[in-house]
Protein backbone atom coordinates (compact mmCIF):
# COMPACT_ATOMS: atom_id res chain seq x y z
CA UNK A 1 0.00 0.00 0.00
CA UNK A 2 2.78 2.40 1.03
CA UNK A 3 4.64 1.32 -2.07
CA UNK A 4 1.69 2.29 -4.26
CA UNK A 5 1.50 5.66 -2.44
CA UNK A 6 5.17 6.51 -2.83
CA UNK A 7 5.99 5.13 -6.24
CA UNK A 8 2.83 5.07 -8.25
CA UNK A 9 0.89 8.04 -6.88
CA UNK A 10 3.59 10.52 -5.83
CA UNK A 11 6.01 9.14 -8.43
CA UNK A 12 3.65 9.94 -11.29
CA UNK A 13 4.21 13.64 -12.02
CA UNK A 14 0.77 14.04 -13.62
CA UNK A 15 -0.98 12.87 -10.45
CA UNK A 16 1.38 14.90 -8.28
CA UNK A 17 0.58 18.20 -10.02
CA UNK A 18 -3.09 17.20 -9.97
CA UNK A 19 -2.86 16.87 -6.18
CA UNK A 20 -1.30 20.34 -5.93
CA UNK A 21 -4.13 21.80 -8.01
CA UNK A 22 -6.62 19.94 -5.78
CA UNK A 23 -5.13 21.46 -2.63
CA UNK A 24 -5.01 24.93 -4.22
CA UNK A 25 -8.67 24.71 -5.23
CA UNK A 26 -9.73 23.43 -1.79
CA UNK A 27 -7.84 26.30 -0.05
CA UNK A 28 -9.76 28.76 -2.23
CA UNK A 29 -13.01 27.03 -1.14
CA UNK A 30 -14.18 26.43 -4.70
CA UNK A 31 -17.33 24.41 -5.45
CA UNK A 32 -17.08 20.63 -5.73
CA UNK A 33 -17.58 20.69 -9.49
CA UNK A 34 -14.83 23.31 -9.99
CA UNK A 35 -12.46 21.31 -7.79
CA UNK A 36 -13.14 18.14 -9.76
CA UNK A 37 -12.82 19.69 -13.23
CA UNK A 38 -9.79 21.79 -12.25
CA UNK A 39 -7.94 18.79 -10.87
CA UNK A 40 -8.75 16.62 -13.88
CA UNK A 41 -7.72 19.33 -16.35
CA UNK A 42 -4.39 19.86 -14.58
CA UNK A 43 -3.63 16.13 -14.81
CA UNK A 44 -4.71 16.10 -18.44
CA UNK A 45 -2.43 19.08 -19.14
CA UNK A 46 0.54 17.04 -17.97
CA UNK A 47 -0.48 14.05 -20.09
CA UNK A 48 -0.89 16.30 -23.15
CA UNK A 49 2.62 17.64 -22.50
CA UNK A 50 4.01 14.12 -22.87
CA UNK A 51 2.00 13.45 -26.02
CA UNK A 52 3.33 16.64 -27.62
CA UNK A 53 6.87 15.65 -26.71
CA UNK A 54 6.51 12.40 -28.64
CA UNK A 55 5.42 14.29 -31.78
CA UNK A 56 8.18 16.88 -31.41
CA UNK A 57 11.01 14.45 -30.73
CA UNK A 58 10.12 12.40 -33.80
CA UNK A 59 10.70 15.45 -35.95
CA UNK A 60 13.81 16.55 -34.02
CA UNK A 61 15.40 13.13 -34.49
CA UNK A 62 15.01 13.42 -38.25
CA UNK A 63 16.49 16.93 -38.16
CA UNK A 64 19.49 15.79 -36.13
CA UNK A 65 20.20 12.87 -38.47
CA UNK A 66 19.97 15.09 -41.55
CA UNK A 67 22.12 17.79 -39.97
CA UNK A 68 24.72 15.30 -38.84
CA UNK A 69 24.87 13.65 -42.26
CA UNK A 70 25.11 17.00 -44.06
CA UNK A 71 27.68 18.80 -41.92
CA UNK A 72 29.31 16.12 -39.73
CA UNK A 73 28.53 18.24 -36.68
CA UNK A 74 25.59 18.14 -34.30
CA UNK A 75 22.91 20.80 -34.71
CA UNK A 76 20.80 21.72 -31.72
CA UNK A 77 17.49 23.58 -31.73
CA UNK A 78 16.98 25.25 -28.35
CA UNK A 79 13.33 24.92 -27.37
CA UNK A 80 12.22 25.04 -23.73
CA UNK A 81 8.96 23.20 -24.37
CA UNK A 82 10.77 20.36 -26.12
CA UNK A 83 13.54 19.81 -23.59
CA UNK A 84 11.20 20.04 -20.61
CA UNK A 85 8.67 17.69 -22.15
CA UNK A 86 11.44 15.26 -23.10
CA UNK A 87 13.00 15.40 -19.63
CA UNK A 88 9.75 14.51 -17.85
CA UNK A 89 10.33 10.77 -18.06
CA UNK A 90 13.51 11.15 -15.97
CA UNK A 91 12.90 14.34 -13.98
CA UNK A 92 9.11 14.61 -13.88
CA UNK A 93 8.64 14.01 -10.18
CA UNK A 94 11.51 16.21 -9.01
CA UNK A 95 10.42 18.95 -11.46
CA UNK A 96 6.88 18.94 -10.06
CA UNK A 97 8.08 18.98 -6.42
CA UNK A 98 10.67 21.72 -7.02
CA UNK A 99 8.09 23.77 -8.89
CA UNK A 100 5.59 23.74 -6.03
CA UNK A 101 8.05 24.14 -3.15
CA UNK A 102 9.89 26.78 -5.19
CA UNK A 103 6.64 28.75 -5.32
CA UNK A 104 6.34 28.39 -1.54
CA UNK A 105 9.93 29.70 -1.24
CA UNK A 106 8.97 32.63 -3.49
CA UNK A 107 6.12 33.49 -1.10
CA UNK A 108 8.41 33.29 1.93
CA UNK A 109 11.13 35.42 0.33
CA UNK A 110 8.58 38.03 -0.77
CA UNK A 111 7.06 38.05 2.72
CA UNK A 112 10.28 38.32 4.73
CA UNK A 113 12.88 40.02 2.50
CA UNK A 114 12.87 43.34 0.59
CA UNK A 115 12.56 41.39 -2.69
CA UNK A 116 8.78 41.69 -2.89
CA UNK A 117 8.11 39.94 -6.20
CA UNK A 118 5.61 37.19 -6.96
CA UNK A 119 6.68 35.33 -10.09
CA UNK A 120 3.53 34.56 -12.08
CA UNK A 121 4.91 33.27 -15.39
CA UNK A 122 3.89 29.67 -14.70
CA UNK A 123 5.46 28.01 -17.73
CA UNK A 124 8.83 29.58 -16.92
CA UNK A 125 8.55 28.38 -13.32
CA UNK A 126 8.00 24.89 -14.72
CA UNK A 127 10.97 25.16 -17.13
CA UNK A 128 13.31 26.53 -14.44
CA UNK A 129 12.22 23.76 -12.04
CA UNK A 130 13.14 21.21 -14.70
CA UNK A 131 16.50 22.86 -15.43
CA UNK A 132 17.37 22.97 -11.73
CA UNK A 133 16.32 19.32 -11.25
CA UNK A 134 18.46 18.27 -14.21
CA UNK A 135 21.50 20.39 -13.23
CA UNK A 136 21.53 19.24 -9.61
CA UNK A 137 21.19 15.66 -10.78
CA UNK A 138 24.08 16.05 -13.26
CA UNK A 139 26.05 17.57 -10.37
CA UNK A 140 25.50 14.38 -8.35
CA UNK A 141 22.58 15.23 -6.07
CA UNK A 142 19.45 13.15 -5.56
CA UNK A 143 16.52 12.51 -3.25
CA UNK A 144 15.43 14.97 -0.56
CA UNK A 145 18.54 17.24 -0.75
CA UNK A 146 17.87 17.73 -4.48
CA UNK A 147 14.27 18.81 -3.80
CA UNK A 148 15.21 21.09 -0.87
CA UNK A 149 18.18 22.77 -2.60
CA UNK A 150 16.25 22.94 -5.84
CA UNK A 151 13.25 24.64 -4.27
CA UNK A 152 15.44 27.23 -2.51
CA UNK A 153 17.29 27.96 -5.77
CA UNK A 154 14.04 28.27 -7.72
CA UNK A 155 12.56 30.60 -5.09
CA UNK A 156 15.69 32.77 -5.29
CA UNK A 157 15.53 32.90 -9.11
CA UNK A 158 11.87 33.95 -8.87
CA UNK A 159 12.69 37.10 -6.85
CA UNK A 160 16.27 37.99 -7.87
CA UNK A 161 15.79 38.12 -11.65
CA UNK A 162 12.72 40.43 -11.51
CA UNK A 163 14.58 42.60 -8.97
CA UNK A 164 17.59 43.26 -11.24
CA UNK A 165 15.26 44.32 -14.07
CA UNK A 166 12.94 46.53 -12.03
CA UNK A 167 14.81 49.88 -12.37
CA UNK A 168 14.56 49.63 -16.17
CA UNK A 169 10.98 48.29 -16.07
CA UNK A 170 9.99 51.47 -14.20
CA UNK A 171 11.51 53.52 -17.05
CA UNK A 172 9.68 51.44 -19.68
CA UNK A 173 6.20 51.46 -18.16
CA UNK A 174 6.36 54.81 -16.38
CA UNK A 175 4.89 53.24 -13.26
CA UNK A 176 5.71 50.67 -10.61
CA UNK A 177 2.60 48.47 -11.05
CA UNK A 178 4.33 45.29 -12.12
CA UNK A 179 7.69 43.63 -12.70
CA UNK A 180 8.98 41.41 -15.51
CA UNK A 181 9.20 37.74 -14.55
CA UNK A 182 10.71 35.94 -17.52
CA UNK A 183 13.91 33.92 -17.55
CA UNK A 184 15.56 35.89 -20.34
CA UNK A 185 16.56 38.48 -17.72
CA UNK A 186 20.33 38.35 -18.25
CA UNK A 187 19.84 39.27 -21.91
CA UNK A 188 17.52 42.15 -20.97
CA UNK A 189 19.86 43.37 -18.25
CA UNK A 190 22.85 43.37 -20.63
CA UNK A 191 20.73 45.14 -23.24
CA UNK A 192 19.74 47.87 -20.80
CA UNK A 193 23.39 48.32 -19.72
CA UNK A 194 24.58 48.55 -23.34
CA UNK A 195 21.86 51.10 -24.07
CA UNK A 196 22.93 53.13 -21.05
CA UNK A 197 26.61 53.07 -22.07
CA UNK A 198 26.39 53.62 -25.83
CA UNK A 199 22.92 54.90 -26.62
CA UNK A 200 20.91 58.06 -26.33
CA UNK A 201 17.47 57.53 -24.91
CA UNK A 202 16.18 60.80 -26.34
CA UNK A 203 16.29 59.16 -29.80
CA UNK A 204 13.56 56.62 -29.14
CA UNK A 205 12.64 53.80 -31.54
CA UNK A 206 9.05 54.95 -31.27
CA UNK A 207 9.81 58.07 -33.32
CA UNK A 208 10.64 56.05 -36.46
CA UNK A 209 8.29 54.34 -38.89
CA UNK A 210 8.64 50.55 -38.76
CA UNK A 211 6.63 48.31 -41.10
CA UNK A 212 3.84 46.52 -39.24
CA UNK A 213 3.93 43.61 -41.68
CA UNK A 214 6.13 41.49 -39.41
CA UNK A 215 3.38 41.31 -36.81
CA UNK A 216 2.19 37.89 -38.03
CA UNK A 217 5.38 36.41 -36.57
CA UNK A 218 3.94 37.00 -33.11
CA UNK A 219 1.80 33.95 -33.86
CA UNK A 220 4.08 31.27 -32.40
CA UNK A 221 2.82 28.42 -34.57
CA UNK A 222 3.29 30.41 -37.79
CA UNK A 223 6.74 31.61 -36.71
CA UNK A 224 7.93 28.09 -35.89
CA UNK A 225 6.50 26.52 -39.07
CA UNK A 226 8.18 29.18 -41.16
CA UNK A 227 11.67 29.06 -39.69
CA UNK A 228 11.72 25.32 -39.28
CA UNK A 229 10.63 24.86 -42.93
CA UNK A 230 13.52 27.06 -44.04
CA UNK A 231 16.07 25.26 -41.88
CA UNK A 232 14.70 21.80 -42.73
CA UNK A 233 14.82 22.53 -46.48
CA UNK A 234 18.38 23.92 -46.37
CA UNK A 235 19.59 20.98 -44.30
CA UNK A 236 17.72 18.53 -46.57
CA UNK A 237 19.46 20.00 -49.62
CA UNK A 238 22.86 19.52 -47.98
CA UNK A 239 22.04 16.04 -46.66
CA UNK A 240 21.07 15.01 -50.16
CA UNK A 241 18.09 13.36 -51.79
CA UNK A 242 19.48 9.86 -51.85
CA UNK A 243 20.29 9.72 -48.13
CA UNK A 244 16.91 11.10 -47.00
CA UNK A 245 14.77 9.05 -49.36
CA UNK A 246 16.66 5.83 -48.60
CA UNK A 247 17.15 6.26 -44.85
CA UNK A 248 14.48 8.57 -43.43
CA UNK A 249 11.44 9.30 -45.55
CA UNK A 250 10.65 5.77 -46.71
CA UNK A 251 10.89 6.81 -50.35
CA UNK A 252 8.76 9.95 -50.36
CA UNK A 253 10.22 13.13 -51.88
CA UNK A 254 12.90 14.68 -49.67
CA UNK A 255 11.69 18.29 -49.87
CA UNK A 256 8.07 17.34 -49.12
CA UNK A 257 9.36 15.22 -46.25
CA UNK A 258 11.40 18.18 -44.91
CA UNK A 259 8.42 20.53 -44.99
CA UNK A 260 6.10 18.05 -43.29
CA UNK A 261 8.71 17.39 -40.59
CA UNK A 262 9.09 21.15 -40.01
CA UNK A 263 5.33 21.57 -39.60
CA UNK A 264 5.25 18.46 -37.40
CA UNK A 265 7.76 20.22 -35.16
CA UNK A 266 5.47 23.26 -34.94
CA UNK A 267 2.50 20.97 -34.27
CA UNK A 268 4.42 19.34 -31.43
CA UNK A 269 5.12 22.72 -29.84
CA UNK A 270 1.44 23.66 -30.26
CA UNK A 271 0.32 20.49 -28.45
CA UNK A 272 2.83 21.08 -25.63
CA UNK A 273 1.68 24.70 -25.25
CA UNK A 274 -1.93 23.52 -25.00
CA UNK A 275 -0.85 21.09 -22.28
CA UNK A 276 1.15 23.72 -20.38
CA UNK A 277 -1.82 26.12 -20.59
CA UNK A 278 -4.10 23.56 -18.91
CA UNK A 279 -1.39 22.65 -16.42
CA UNK A 280 -0.87 26.18 -15.11
CA UNK A 281 -4.50 27.38 -15.42
CA UNK A 282 -5.44 26.22 -11.91
CA UNK A 283 -2.06 26.47 -10.19
CA UNK A 284 -1.25 30.13 -10.98
CA UNK A 285 -4.55 31.72 -9.80
CA UNK A 286 -4.27 29.71 -6.56
CA UNK A 287 -0.68 30.91 -6.13
CA UNK A 288 -1.70 34.50 -6.85
CA UNK A 289 -4.66 34.25 -4.45
CA UNK A 290 -2.44 33.04 -1.63
CA UNK A 291 0.19 35.68 -2.45
CA UNK A 292 -2.39 38.51 -2.39
CA UNK A 293 -3.39 37.50 1.14
CA UNK A 294 0.10 36.72 2.47
CA UNK A 295 2.17 39.49 0.85
CA UNK A 296 -0.28 42.32 0.23
CA UNK A 297 2.21 44.87 -1.15
CA UNK A 298 4.08 42.50 -3.46
CA UNK A 299 4.61 43.21 -7.15
CA UNK A 300 3.47 40.64 -9.70
CA UNK A 301 6.36 39.58 -11.99
CA UNK A 302 4.85 38.91 -15.42
CA UNK A 303 5.69 37.37 -18.79
CA UNK A 304 7.82 39.57 -21.10
CA UNK A 305 5.12 40.47 -23.71
CA UNK A 306 3.42 42.61 -21.04
CA UNK A 307 6.02 45.33 -21.79
CA UNK A 308 5.70 45.05 -25.62
CA UNK A 309 2.80 47.56 -25.97
CA UNK A 310 4.97 50.25 -24.36
CA UNK A 311 7.40 50.28 -27.33
CA UNK A 312 6.01 48.37 -30.35
CA UNK A 313 8.76 49.52 -32.72
CA UNK A 314 11.49 48.37 -30.36
CA UNK A 315 9.77 44.95 -30.41
CA UNK A 316 10.30 44.55 -34.17
CA UNK A 317 13.80 46.09 -34.15
CA UNK A 318 14.84 43.96 -31.18
CA UNK A 319 13.63 40.77 -32.82
CA UNK A 320 15.46 41.49 -36.10
CA UNK A 321 18.79 42.33 -34.45
CA UNK A 322 18.63 39.40 -32.04
CA UNK A 323 17.88 36.99 -34.90
CA UNK A 324 20.71 38.46 -36.96
CA UNK A 325 23.11 37.81 -34.07
CA UNK A 326 21.71 34.27 -33.84
CA UNK A 327 22.41 33.61 -37.52
CA UNK A 328 25.97 34.95 -37.27
CA UNK A 329 26.58 32.94 -34.09
CA UNK A 330 25.41 29.77 -35.85
CA UNK A 331 28.44 30.06 -38.14
CA UNK A 332 30.83 31.15 -35.38
CA UNK A 333 30.03 28.37 -32.89
CA UNK A 334 31.57 25.38 -34.75
CA UNK A 335 34.75 27.43 -35.34
CA UNK A 336 35.46 27.37 -31.61
CA UNK A 337 34.44 23.73 -31.26
CA UNK A 338 30.93 24.20 -29.85
CA UNK A 339 27.76 22.55 -31.08
CA UNK A 340 25.77 24.48 -33.67
CA UNK A 341 22.82 26.31 -32.12
CA UNK A 342 20.17 26.73 -34.79
CA UNK A 343 18.47 30.08 -34.09
CA UNK A 344 14.75 29.75 -33.49
CA UNK A 345 12.34 32.54 -34.35
CA UNK A 346 10.45 32.06 -31.09
CA UNK A 347 13.25 32.61 -28.55
CA UNK A 348 14.62 35.44 -30.68
CA UNK A 349 11.19 36.98 -31.02
CA UNK A 350 10.27 36.93 -27.36
CA UNK A 351 13.63 37.61 -25.74
CA UNK A 352 15.00 39.70 -28.63
CA UNK A 353 11.90 41.88 -28.61
CA UNK A 354 12.05 42.33 -24.83
CA UNK A 355 15.79 43.13 -25.04
CA UNK A 356 14.93 45.70 -27.71
CA UNK A 357 12.39 47.34 -25.38
CA UNK A 358 14.89 47.39 -22.50
CA UNK A 359 17.68 48.80 -24.70
CA UNK A 360 15.35 51.47 -26.04
CA UNK A 361 14.39 52.58 -22.53
CA UNK A 362 18.00 53.31 -21.61
CA UNK A 363 19.58 54.08 -25.00
CA UNK A 364 16.99 54.72 -27.70
CA UNK A 365 17.54 53.27 -31.20
CA UNK A 366 21.20 52.45 -30.71
CA UNK A 367 20.42 50.82 -27.36
CA UNK A 368 17.60 48.81 -28.86
CA UNK A 369 19.68 47.52 -31.78
CA UNK A 370 22.95 46.88 -29.93
CA UNK A 371 21.21 45.50 -26.85
CA UNK A 372 19.06 43.06 -28.83
CA UNK A 373 22.13 42.01 -30.86
CA UNK A 374 23.95 41.24 -27.59
CA UNK A 375 20.90 39.23 -26.44
CA UNK A 376 21.07 37.22 -29.68
CA UNK A 377 24.71 36.35 -29.03
CA UNK A 378 23.94 35.42 -25.41
CA UNK A 379 21.08 33.04 -26.31
CA UNK A 380 23.30 31.36 -28.93
CA UNK A 381 26.48 30.87 -26.90
CA UNK A 382 24.98 30.17 -23.46
CA UNK A 383 22.93 27.12 -24.63
CA UNK A 384 26.00 25.81 -26.48
CA UNK A 385 28.13 26.12 -23.33
CA UNK A 386 25.38 24.59 -21.18
CA UNK A 387 25.39 21.53 -23.47
CA UNK A 388 29.05 20.87 -22.63
CA UNK A 389 28.10 20.37 -18.99
CA UNK A 390 24.71 18.71 -19.40
CA UNK A 391 26.08 15.41 -20.65
CA UNK A 392 23.33 13.11 -21.87
CA UNK A 393 20.60 15.67 -21.30
CA UNK A 394 20.28 17.35 -24.63
CA UNK A 395 20.97 14.25 -26.71
CA UNK A 396 17.48 14.75 -28.16
CA UNK A 397 18.92 17.57 -30.27
CA UNK A 398 17.35 20.27 -28.15
CA UNK A 399 18.17 22.28 -25.04
CA UNK A 400 17.00 25.21 -22.90
CA UNK A 401 16.69 28.42 -24.91
CA UNK A 402 16.47 31.53 -22.76
CA UNK A 403 19.53 33.10 -21.14
CA UNK A 404 18.81 32.58 -17.44
CA UNK A 405 18.30 28.82 -17.79
CA UNK A 406 21.77 28.44 -19.29
CA UNK A 407 23.46 30.73 -16.76
CA UNK A 408 21.78 29.06 -13.76
CA UNK A 409 22.54 25.57 -15.10
CA UNK A 410 26.20 26.34 -15.79
CA UNK A 411 26.66 27.90 -12.32
CA UNK A 412 24.92 25.01 -10.48
CA UNK A 413 26.89 22.28 -12.21
CA UNK A 414 30.24 24.03 -11.80
CA UNK A 415 29.72 24.84 -8.11
CA UNK A 416 28.77 21.23 -7.42
CA UNK A 417 31.87 20.08 -9.31
CA UNK A 418 33.99 22.41 -7.20
CA UNK A 419 32.73 20.73 -4.04
CA UNK A 420 33.49 17.34 -5.50
CA UNK A 421 29.91 16.15 -5.63
CA UNK A 422 30.49 14.70 -9.09
Amino acid sequence: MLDVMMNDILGTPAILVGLFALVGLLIQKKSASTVLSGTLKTIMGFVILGAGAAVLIGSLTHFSKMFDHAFQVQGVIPNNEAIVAAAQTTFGTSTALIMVFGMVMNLLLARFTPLKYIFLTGHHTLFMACLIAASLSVGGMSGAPLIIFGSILLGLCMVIFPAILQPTVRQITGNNDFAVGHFGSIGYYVSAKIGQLFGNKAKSTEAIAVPKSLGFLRDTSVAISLTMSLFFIVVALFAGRSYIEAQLSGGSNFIVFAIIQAITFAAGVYIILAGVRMLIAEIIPAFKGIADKLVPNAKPALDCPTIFPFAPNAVIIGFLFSFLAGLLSMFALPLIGLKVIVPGLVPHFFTGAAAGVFGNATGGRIGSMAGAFANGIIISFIPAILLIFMGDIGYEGTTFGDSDFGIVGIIIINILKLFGAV
Partner: protein
Amino acid sequence: MKILVVCGNGLGSSFMMELTIKKALLELSKEAEVTHTDLTSVTSEKADIYIGAGDIVDQLDNGVRKIVRVVNMMSIPEIKGKLAPLL
Protein backbone atom coordinates in the same frame (compact mmCIF):
# COMPACT_ATOMS: atom_id res chain seq x y z
CA MET B 1 -21.15 37.50 -23.30
CA LYS B 2 -17.75 35.97 -23.98
CA ILE B 3 -14.46 37.86 -23.82
CA LEU B 4 -11.39 36.24 -25.37
CA VAL B 5 -7.92 37.47 -24.38
CA VAL B 6 -5.22 36.85 -26.99
CA CYS B 7 -1.41 36.82 -26.99
CA GLY B 8 1.31 35.17 -29.08
CA ASN B 9 1.67 32.00 -27.03
CA GLY B 10 -1.60 32.03 -25.09
CA LEU B 11 0.37 31.32 -21.92
CA GLY B 12 1.64 34.28 -19.93
CA SER B 13 0.50 37.79 -20.76
CA SER B 14 -3.01 36.83 -21.94
CA PHE B 15 -3.48 34.81 -18.74
CA MET B 16 -2.46 37.77 -16.58
CA MET B 17 -4.73 40.08 -18.56
CA GLU B 18 -7.59 37.62 -18.03
CA LEU B 19 -7.13 37.97 -14.25
CA THR B 20 -7.12 41.80 -14.55
CA ILE B 21 -10.26 41.74 -16.74
CA LYS B 22 -12.08 39.53 -14.24
CA LYS B 23 -11.29 42.07 -11.51
CA ALA B 24 -12.41 44.94 -13.75
CA LEU B 25 -15.72 43.15 -14.49
CA LEU B 26 -16.26 42.63 -10.79
CA GLU B 27 -15.77 46.35 -10.17
CA LEU B 28 -18.18 47.17 -13.01
CA SER B 29 -20.55 44.53 -11.54
CA LYS B 30 -20.89 42.91 -14.97
CA GLU B 31 -20.77 39.22 -15.75
CA ALA B 32 -18.98 37.64 -18.69
CA GLU B 33 -17.09 34.48 -19.56
CA VAL B 34 -13.36 35.31 -19.89
CA THR B 35 -10.79 32.92 -21.36
CA HIS B 36 -7.34 33.28 -22.95
CA THR B 37 -5.75 31.71 -26.02
CA ASP B 38 -3.00 32.06 -28.66
CA LEU B 39 -3.16 33.71 -32.09
CA THR B 40 -3.38 30.39 -33.95
CA SER B 41 -6.33 29.02 -32.02
CA VAL B 42 -8.29 32.27 -31.90
CA THR B 43 -9.54 31.94 -35.48
CA SER B 44 -11.49 28.82 -34.55
CA GLU B 45 -12.95 30.24 -31.33
CA LYS B 46 -15.92 32.61 -31.35
CA ALA B 47 -16.22 35.43 -28.85
CA ASP B 48 -18.15 38.67 -28.40
CA ILE B 49 -15.09 40.76 -27.59
CA TYR B 50 -11.43 40.15 -28.50
CA ILE B 51 -8.87 41.88 -26.30
CA GLY B 52 -5.05 42.06 -26.32
CA ALA B 53 -1.99 44.16 -27.15
CA GLY B 54 -2.54 46.40 -30.19
CA ASP B 55 -0.24 44.64 -32.65
CA ILE B 56 -1.74 41.25 -31.69
CA VAL B 57 -5.44 42.06 -31.97
CA ASP B 58 -4.89 44.23 -35.07
CA GLN B 59 -4.44 40.95 -36.92
CA LEU B 60 -7.94 39.88 -35.90
CA ASP B 61 -9.58 43.09 -37.04
CA ASN B 62 -11.82 42.11 -39.99
CA GLY B 63 -14.21 45.01 -39.52
CA VAL B 64 -16.80 42.77 -37.86
CA ARG B 65 -15.14 41.67 -34.64
CA LYS B 66 -15.27 43.87 -31.55
CA ILE B 67 -11.62 44.58 -30.74
CA VAL B 68 -10.10 46.14 -27.61
CA ARG B 69 -6.45 47.28 -27.65
CA VAL B 70 -4.67 47.38 -24.29
CA VAL B 71 -1.39 49.11 -23.40
CA ASN B 72 -0.97 48.41 -19.68
CA MET B 73 -2.29 44.86 -19.15
CA MET B 74 -2.27 45.27 -15.37
CA SER B 75 -4.20 48.54 -15.30
CA ILE B 76 -7.76 47.97 -14.08
CA PRO B 77 -8.76 51.62 -14.83
CA GLU B 78 -7.57 51.33 -18.46
CA ILE B 79 -9.40 48.04 -19.01
CA LYS B 80 -12.55 49.29 -17.28
CA GLY B 81 -12.56 52.41 -19.42
CA LYS B 82 -12.14 50.48 -22.67
CA LEU B 83 -14.53 47.60 -21.86
CA ALA B 84 -17.41 49.49 -20.25
CA PRO B 85 -18.84 50.99 -23.48
CA LEU B 86 -18.94 47.52 -25.10
CA LEU B 87 -20.70 45.64 -22.31
